[in-house]
């Protein structure tokens, strides 16, 4: 939000995974928030895209992927598997990633659909997802020690269960989250934030956006110098969202 154009503190490359098939729940908003907050913090942002069949860009600093139709997951399946080793290496190396909804499920070990078909994931997250008959839809508030309250909207029929090597992103105080049995929402592992919440997630949860930015910049430039960002509207939107019915 600074005036004038001070010298850039550096450039961060944001890679959006599968925007063509996995961008149905406002996922673009998360990319835009990273781009704008980087600018407000004094950094340049470059947005890259990877769709099924493209050559995977080799030099991304933040990876971000969203939700799609069940049919979209089928379309990207093969491409995702062929890039799985590379994505696992990036994750292991500490690349910050945001995986929402469909990509969250596919970052896990598998997604077993209701009819018993097992769709393999890429195993970055120790989670498994089981197709359910009930669809979990509505506003969500979940408490995270790391990021404070997280606000969003969920719309999924997959029920996700966490294995021992990932921890939940947050504890649900309104809504369902990962599944209808436990009060966990999302997963945290390495520098990955994974969640069922869209809404979009990052605009109303700037703490999560700034975590991804801080990790990316620190990895690339050794340190992160935040700018002065005005989050008044985000705070008001958060307060209001908490009062909305499911």
């Amino acid at each position: 939000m600074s005036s004038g154009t001070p010298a850039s503190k550096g450039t961060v490359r944001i890679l959006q995974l599968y925007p063509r098939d996995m961008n149905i729940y406002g996922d673009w908003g998360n990319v835009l928030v990273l781009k704008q907050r980087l600018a407000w913090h004094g950094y340049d942002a470059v947005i890259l895209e990877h769709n099924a069949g493209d050559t995977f860009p080799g030099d991304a600093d933040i990876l971000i992927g969203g939700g799609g139709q069940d049919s979209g997951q089928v379309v990207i399946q093969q491409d995702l598997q062929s890039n799985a080793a590379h994505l696992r290496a990036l994750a292991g190396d500490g690349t910050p990633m945001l995986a929402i909804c469909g990509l969250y499920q596919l970052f896990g070990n598998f997604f077993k659909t209701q009819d018993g078909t097992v769709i393999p994931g890429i195993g970055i997250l120790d989670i498994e997802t089981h197709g359910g008959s009930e669809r979990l839809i509505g506003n969500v508030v979940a408490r995270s020690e790391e990021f404070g309250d997280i606000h969003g909207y969920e719309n999924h029929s997959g029920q996700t269960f966490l294995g021992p090597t990932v921890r939940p992103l947050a504890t649900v105080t309104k809504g369902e989250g990962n599944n209808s049995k436990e009060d966990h929402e999302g997963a945290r592992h390495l520098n990955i934030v994974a969640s069922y919440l869209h809404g979009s997630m990052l605009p109303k949860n700037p703490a999560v956006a700034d975590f991804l930015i801080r990790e990316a910049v620190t990895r690339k430039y050794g340190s992160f110098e935040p700018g002065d960002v005005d989050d008044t509207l985000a705070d008001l939107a958060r307060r209001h969202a908490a009062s909305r019915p499911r």
Partner: protein
Amino acid sequence: MSGLSFVSVPLGKTVRALSRLRGGGSAFPGLVVERIDPGFMARALRNLPKGIIVVSGTNGKTTTTKMVVELLEGQGLKVFTNRTGSNFTRGVAAALLGEVDWRGRLSADVAVLELDEAHAVHFVNLVPPTHCLLLNVLRDQLDRFGEIDKTTRLLEHIAVKTTGTVVLNREDPRVASIAPSVRNAAVAYFGLAESLRDTFPSDDDLRGATGTAPASSLPADVVLETVVSNTATFRMDGEASTVDLTLRGVYNIFNAAAALAMARVILGGEAKRDAMLRSLAAVEPAFGRGESLVVDGLPLELVLVKNPSGFRLGLKSFDAVGYATMIAINDNYADGRDMSWLWDVDFDSLRTGGVEMVSGVRAYDMALRLQYDDVAAQAVEPDTGSALRTFIRSAKDRPKRIFCTYTAMLAIRRDLSKITDVKVVS
């Protein structure tokens, strides 16, 4: 069978008269007759000489239905239709009760019925349509249906039950995908010239980067070729016709191609093209859909927005220059609870002039969205009543435009009716 009419129709009509006396124009009488006499609608509608047309899709149903009705009336047909706000089965039944005689007979040539995509399934199971017009599958219903692919299946069910002709939007990949399921009816299409494809992004085209599906190669009965302001050129039978429309908004103009295609199916060789174009030119916007009112001697336009495609097209259709802009976003059930789609609308066109007032239950979400597109918002006031008063006062000397979700539109319209003439649609 018809013996039941002697009981249900008079009873339904009585309930209707009583509920009107009480000041309601509700669908309740329709519910009553539906419960006691489920065959009522099918009996009343089945013998119409030109059949039963169902208009459905996620967006543009109301205005398109109005266009089809006026096109057919312009050719001398007597048309039965359900009016705004009653696009559920019981709404159709309630509208029928107002039109049938005491024995349940309807005097009309054709019925043109707007049906909500979910309730249409129930309706077509009771009353198979002879024709259907399927407009689009957009994203504003995700909190009801979970997936837009599921919405497609609902429209497909309408098409499968249709016995005469199914008219499809060839540019919407989900609507076009319905064609192979149609076994008992003919299929016709309406579409766009290639040069207009990127003006009408489908949900698959919506993301930050540009990208548009290739033009469809399916044969279309009516093609919208050019749009310049309110002037549109349609190609039919290899001939281009240009018409100046009263309706504004490019989405309405594309739906005019849909209405023309449907009317041509009904009229066949009897269609009089010049008269059809004259009817189309005269169609006025339906309730809240690009209505232009007058406040302080200057226009105030209401633009209904329900999903990212519609909002994008609204911003594209209505030039912001010279206008004071207000945006009101509610997230009540009828609006859809999920507001994430606001992030798929690009608000760049408002950057120069800024937004005078942001309102509605989700005012702060909207203001936050504008902040991320570097659009200045002068004021944020969740209460639409006081927001409207402030907006009208502060923009006194300028024409005004309000983009609003459905329930925000209802509230704003109610408040506006206290200060200006707002047309009442029964």
